[in-house]
C-alpha cells in the first residue's frame, strides 16, 4: 500500500539540476544580446545601456523588497554609495573602478545592514520602514551635497583616458564595449538572483516575508537573514551605480542619491513583476526607453498631436499612465501576470 503511494507520486526532487529553466533562459538572453550593439544605430546604444543599468537597479530592489518583503524607498542610497565610492577612489587615488566596485559593494552593504538593524531594533515595519529608508537616503544626499571633501554639489568627473581600457572601465564614445560590460554585470546580477531564489537564504527571505512569526517559530534567525538579504540587495545596487558613473563619466549628489533614483528602483520591478526573477528585466525593457521615445515624439509629433511639439514632461505623463494601467490590469506586473497565466494552464 505504502509502496504504491510512493510510486504514484514521483519525487519532485529527481529532476532538480543546476541548469534549470532560469539558467537556460539567462544563457539564451546573453547570447542573443551580444550582437545587439552591432545592430543598433548611433544614439540607440545609450538606450540599450540604460536598460541594463535600470535592470540592475530593479533587480537590486527586487531582492530586498520583492523577495524579502522589506519595502525600500531609499535604494538611491546603495546606488549612490557605489557610484561615489568608486569615483572617490578613481579620482583621488587612481584606483580601478573594478576595485572601486568591490569597495562600493562593501560600503553599501555595511550601510544597508546598519540602517536595517536600526529600523528592526526599533521595530519599524511596512510604511514606517519604507519612510525610514527614504529618510536615510535623503540624509546621505544632503550630507554629500554639503561636504566639500566629496566636492559637495559639484560631484565628480571621471578622468578621461585615451583609447579604451577594460581595467579602467572606460571606452571611447560609441564603443560597443560599454554595452558588453553592462551585459556582463547584468548577467552577474541575474545569475545572483537565480541562485538567491533557490538558495536557503532566498527561501528563508520569502518565508519571513510571508509570516515572520511563523518563520521565527520554525527556528529561522529572522533578523540575521533580513540583514543578509539587505546586504545582497545593497551590493547589487552599488554595482548599478558604478556602471552608471563609468558610462556617463559624471556623478553628482542628485544623480546618485536623488529620490528619483529610488522611485526608478521601485517602478521597474513593479511594472515587470515584483518578487519574480525576470520581472525587473522586463520592467526595464519597457520603462528605460520611455524617455527617448517621448523625446522623439515631441521633436516630431504625428499630425493629430501637433500641439505637443516642443512641450516637456510627456515622459512623466506616460510614466504615470503606464503605472496606472499596470496597477489596474496587471497588479502582478507584466512578467508576474504571464507567469501566473502559464501556471494556471
Amino acid at each position, binding site marked *: 500500500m505504502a509502496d504504491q503511494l510512493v510510486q504514484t507520486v514521483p519525487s519532485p526532487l529527481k529532476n532538480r539540476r543546476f541548469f534549470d529553466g532560469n539558467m537556460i533562459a539567462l544563457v539564451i538572453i546573453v547570447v542573443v544580446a551580444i550582437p545587439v550593439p552591432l545592430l543598433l544605430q548611433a544614439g540607440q546604444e545609450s538606450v540599450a545601456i540604460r536598460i541594463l543599468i535600470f535592470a540592475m537597479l530593479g533587480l537590486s530592489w527586487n531582492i530586498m523588497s520583492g523577495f524579502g518583503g522589506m519595502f525600500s524607498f531609499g535604494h538611491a542610497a546603495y546606488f549612490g554609495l557605489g557610484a561615489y565610492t568608486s569615483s572617490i577612489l578613481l579620482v583621488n587615488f587612481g584606483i580601478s573602478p573594478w576595485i572601486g566596485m568591490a569597495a562600493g559593494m562593501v560600503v553599501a552593504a555595511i550601510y544597508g545592514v546598519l540602517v536595517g538593524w536600526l529600523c528592526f531594533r526599533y521595530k519599524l515595519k511596512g510604511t514606517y520602514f519604507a519612510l525610514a529608508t527614504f529618510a536615510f537616503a535623503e540624509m546621505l544626499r544632503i550630507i554629500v551635497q554639503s561636504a566639500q571633501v566629496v566636492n559637495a554639489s559639484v560631484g565628480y568627473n571621471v578622468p578621461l583616458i585615451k583609447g579604451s581600457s577594460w581595467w579602467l572601465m572606460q571606452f571611447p564614445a560609441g564603443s560597443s564595449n560599454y554595452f558588453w560590460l553592462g551585459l556582463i554585470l547584468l548577467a552577474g546580477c541575474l545569475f545572483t538572483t537565480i541562485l538567491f531564489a533557490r538558495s536557503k537564504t532566498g527561501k528563508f527571505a520569502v*518565508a519571513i516575508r*510571508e509570516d515572520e*512569526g511563523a*518563520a*521565527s*517559530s*520554525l*527556528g529561522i*534567525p529572522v533578523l540575521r537573514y533580513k540583514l543578509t538579504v539587505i546586504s545582497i540587495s545593497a551590493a547589487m545596487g552599488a554595482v548599478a551605480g558604478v556602471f552608471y558613473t563609468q558610462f556617463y563619466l559624471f556623478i553628482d549628489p542628485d544623480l546618485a542619491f536623488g529620490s528619483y533614483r529610488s522611485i526608478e528602483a521601485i517602478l521597474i520591478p513593479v511594472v515587470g513583476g515584483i518578487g519574480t526573477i525576470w520581472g525587473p528585466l522586463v520592467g526595464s525593457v519597457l520603462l528605460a526607453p520611455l524617455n527617448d521615445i517621448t523625446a522623439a515624439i515631441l521633436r516630431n509629433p504625428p499630425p493629430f498631436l501637433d500641439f505637443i511639439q516642443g512641450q516637456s514632461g510627456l515622459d512623466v505623463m506616460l510614466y504615470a499612465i503606464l503605472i496606472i494601467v499596470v496597477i489596474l490590469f496587471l497588479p502582478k506586473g507584466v512578467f508576474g501576470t504571464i507567469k501566473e497565466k502559464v501556471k494556471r494552464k
Partner: protein
Amino acid sequence: MNAIVSVEHLSKSFGGLRAVHDVTFSVNAGEVLGIIGPNGAGKTTLFNSMAGLFPPTSGTVHYLGQDVTAWSDAQLARAGMVRTFQLMRPFGSMTVLDNVAVAAAARGTKEREAEEQAWEILQQVGLDHYATRTSKDLPTAGLKRLELARAMALHPKVLMLDEVLAGLVPTERQPVIDLLLSIRDQGVTLLFVEHVMQAVMALSDKVLVLNHGEMLAYGTPSEVVNNPEVIEAYLGDEVRNADSD
C-alpha cells in the same frame, strides 16, 4: 525524574490582566500532556510564554535540564522544542515542499538534504500529492497537516500543538489523531491544547486543566474527567455545547 520539560510557578500578566497564574507541571520524555480549559483560560498564553514568544512575568521553564525561560522561539525551535499555531500560518506563496524544507534547513541542514527530508515527511503525513503546489491552495485539513509536517522537519523532541483539530470536521479528525499517535510512537513528547475531548482522551497520558489562568486539575484523563470541579468549569459546558450542536 526524567522530566524533559518542567514549568515552575509560571505566571504571565498583560498589564493588570493575569492571563496565566502560578502554573507548575512537568512532562516526562515520551509522554503526552493534554491541556484543556474553557476559552480564555490562558492555554495559548501558557504555550506562548513557554515557547519563547514572550517571556513569562515570573516563573521558569526548563527543557532538557536547562533553564530556557529567556530563550527566543527560534532558539527553542532549533533545540527541538517546537510549537504550532492554532490558526494555520503557511508561507502562502511557497510550495508545500519548500514550506517544510525551510523548516528542515533552519536546523542547519544543507538545502539538498533539507529537501529530501521534507519530501520524506510529506509522504509520512500524506501531503506528497500536493508537494509542488503553493501552500495557499491547500484545504484546511491539508494546512493542519502542513503545520505538523513543518514542525516534524525540525526533528522535535517536544512538540507543542495548539488546537490541531480545530476547524476539522469529525471525519477529518481521526487521521490527524492517528498521525499524532505515530509521532508519539517515534518518541516525541507531545503537549497539546485541545477542545476535542475525543482526542484528549485517546492521546493523553496526563491532562492539565486551566481555568481563569490557574491550574484547576492535573492528573490522568480518567481522574480529570471525573473531577467535579472540572465538570463544573469546563466539561459541563462541553456537554451542553454538544447537546446544542
